[in-house]
């Protein structure tokens, strides 16, 4: 059977499963809608959190990025996992004990002011919305490539599915659907990796295989280092970027992870404080399966790619090369007219002057090489059966849909709970609040679908925003709210605003304002500046809070009480 037919079957089956679960897990109350009734088992919650966290970017783009960056790609691996340690140790149990629905709830009550709550709501909306647009685009790309529908139809089908189970089931429907999506995506990511690992290094565990030996006895990583330096790239296992930048980007991603509202809200859904801690552990364990496989996929794919195309006559290229060329994500231009593909680093002037020129090469001839191809094409490059490739498509869709649904829920909760119930119309009945939540999720799906169809070309730059802002605003405000009883409204608000303005202006200057890398502050790129923003926020808050009166005694008592697990109740509706 062809890849096409397999894709229809596997994707069709997985969608039928998601819809079935959504009908089974309909939400009847706001509590079920916002936090799945607060009764989700920690292992299941861990799976749902993992699916929520691993987006189309983790599934499709990350391994590709790493295969181009080598060691420098470690920033994503450590950055997007290490934050869970902070979550489990410093946030999840206390926020669960606090026992309300959202991050703005916590900020609003801890800093006893509506202003702080509104700042938090606006940040939550901004972060979630920019994120969800990227997911909708991912859905569109995956559908259009493999089901042979156009991009718009792909976005439409994806929005339709998310609409169905998010509006119907709220957090309850989303959580149970995400459990299924986790299984689909993790299976889809690891199966091809295992196949390739057996093929290349005869080891069924990719995590070990990437350190193994090839059939001819040479070590895998040594071989890849050799291939890379032969083509003028830096050694795969050692880095190219300044260590301070690597440090700051890793830290910003970790702190940002721990401050992202759609991740934090997950820990409101478990029954007990004990479960919130455990649940973060399970979530990271499930995430680690993908995050430790990805670097192996990157190593295998990079080696396979170089050996199968470098200096190969264009007429003899493998069939996958031609099929990706038609998508425009891969392009060859025979610059020196010798009919062969020369793929090398033509921005490395030493290499160009000493080697490339003497061989008559006139520039890198793979003029376009989109890194997103790596995960999608690597089963094809390794000649795996058609059903494996179809599985990868279903996995990519599961990753994009699960993340989109989680984010859309945060958006609707922010609107119906934080804005309407807690600010504009406090007297709203539960039935109307639930209706408002459903309407706002519906509107959010439509808007996000439209934005995904016409994505603003700064989507990638905006990811730096989401993490930088979460790291420099939410993270310190929540941590200090728990660990520093003396922290007050003045300190927290001043810190959030200054951290936010500093981080945002740095990112805007370098991403949109024409700043160039040689102007970087201490060589720190915009992706890593959130770390500096966090430090500024923290310092400002500390100083201001010591110069202003301490928080009222009922707030101090609340801080005392969230530090002790006993007495945790379900999220209350007051």
């Amino acid at each position, binding site marked *: 059977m062809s890849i096409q037919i397999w894709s229809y079957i596997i994707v069709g089956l997985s969608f039928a499963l998601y819809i079935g679960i959504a009908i089974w897990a309909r939400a009847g109350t706001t509590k079920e809608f916002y936090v799945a009734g607060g009764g989700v088992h920690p292992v299941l919650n861990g799976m749902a959190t993992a699916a929520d966290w691993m987006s189309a970017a983790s599934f499709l783009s990350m391994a590709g990025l790493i295969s181009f960056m080598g*060691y420098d790609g470690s920033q994503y691996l450590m950055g997007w996992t290490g934050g869970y340690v902070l979550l*489990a140790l410093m946030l999840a149990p206390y926020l669960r004990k606090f026992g309300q629905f959202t991050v703005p709830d916590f900020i609003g009550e801890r800093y006893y002011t509506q202003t702080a709550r509104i700042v938090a709501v606006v940040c939550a909306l901004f972060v979630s919305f920019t994120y969800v647009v990227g997911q909708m685009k991912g859905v569109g790309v995956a559908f259009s490539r493999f089901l042979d529908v156009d991009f718009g139809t792909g976005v439409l089908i994806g929005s339709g599915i998310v609409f169905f189970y998010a509006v119907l089931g709220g957090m309850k429907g989303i959580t149970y659907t995400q459990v299924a999506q986790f299984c689909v995506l993790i299976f889809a990511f690891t199966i091809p990796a295992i196949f390739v690992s057996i093929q290349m290094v005869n080891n069924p565990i990719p995590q070990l295989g990437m350190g193994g030996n090839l059939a001819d006895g040479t070590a895998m990583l040594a071989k890849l280092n050799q291939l890379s330096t032969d083509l003028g790239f830096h050694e795969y*296992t*050692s880095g190219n970027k300044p260590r301070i930048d*690597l440090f700051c980007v*890793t*830290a910003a991603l970790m702190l940002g992870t721990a401050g992202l509202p759609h991740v934090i809200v997950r820990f409101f859904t478990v029954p007990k404080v004990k479960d919130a801690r455990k649940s973060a552990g399970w979530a990271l364990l499930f995430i*680690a399966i993908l995050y430790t496989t990805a670097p192996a996929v990157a190593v295998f794919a990079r080696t396979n790619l170089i050996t199968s195309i470098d200096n190969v006559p264009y007429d003899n290229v493998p069939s996958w090369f031609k099929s990706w060329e038609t998508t425009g994500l891969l392009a060859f231009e025979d610059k020196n007219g010798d009919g062969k593909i020369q793929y090398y680093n033509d921005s490395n002037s030493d290499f160009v002057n000493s080697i490339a020129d003497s061989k008559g090469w006139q520039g890198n001839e793979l003029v376009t090489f989109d890194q997103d191809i790596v995960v999608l094409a690597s089963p094809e490059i390794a000649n795996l059966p058609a059903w494996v490739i179809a599985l990868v498509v279903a996995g990519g869709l599961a990753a994009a849909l699960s993340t989109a649904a989680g984010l859309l829920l945060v958006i609707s909760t922010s609107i119906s709970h934080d804005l309407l119930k807690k600010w504009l119309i406090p007297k709203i009945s539960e039935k109307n609040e639930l209706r408002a939540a459903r309407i706002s999720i519906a509107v959010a799906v439509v808007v996000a679908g439209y934005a995904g169809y016409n994505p603003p070309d700064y989507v990638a730059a905006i990811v730096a925003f989401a993490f930088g802002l979460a790291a420099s605003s939410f993270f310190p405000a929540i941590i200090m709210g728990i660990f520093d009883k003396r922290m007050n409204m003045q300190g927290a608000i001043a810190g959030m605003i200054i951290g936010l303005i500093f981080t945002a202006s740095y990112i805007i200057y370098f991403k949109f304002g024409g700043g160039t890398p040689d102007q970087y502050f201490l060589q720190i790129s915009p992706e890593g500046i959130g770390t500096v923003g966090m430090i500024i926020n923290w310092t400002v808050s500390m100083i201001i809070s010591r110069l202003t009166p301490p928080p009222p005694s009922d707030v101090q008592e609340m801080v005392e009480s969230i530090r002790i697990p006993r007495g945790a109740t379900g999220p209350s509706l007051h």
Partner: protein
Amino acid sequence: MEEHTHKKYWQRNLKYLALLLLIWFIVSYGCGILFADQLNEINFIGFPLGFWFAQQGSIYVFVILIFIYVRLMNKLDHEFDVDEI
């Protein structure tokens, strides 16, 4: 009296936090970034060690740290009689 035990409970919690976060920092920022070049001289199951910490080892340690914390805290909650009923 109750306030006193709560204070002690909180201090023990902070001690655990400091210890676990120190390990967290050493494996990722220490072994994976700051000392990666030196560790890369060492070969570990086919990997340069610094590279292994950055792309594999630190992640395994993260998972283990959380489960250790869960165990420590469950015991501590019980010892101070503040666990959920």
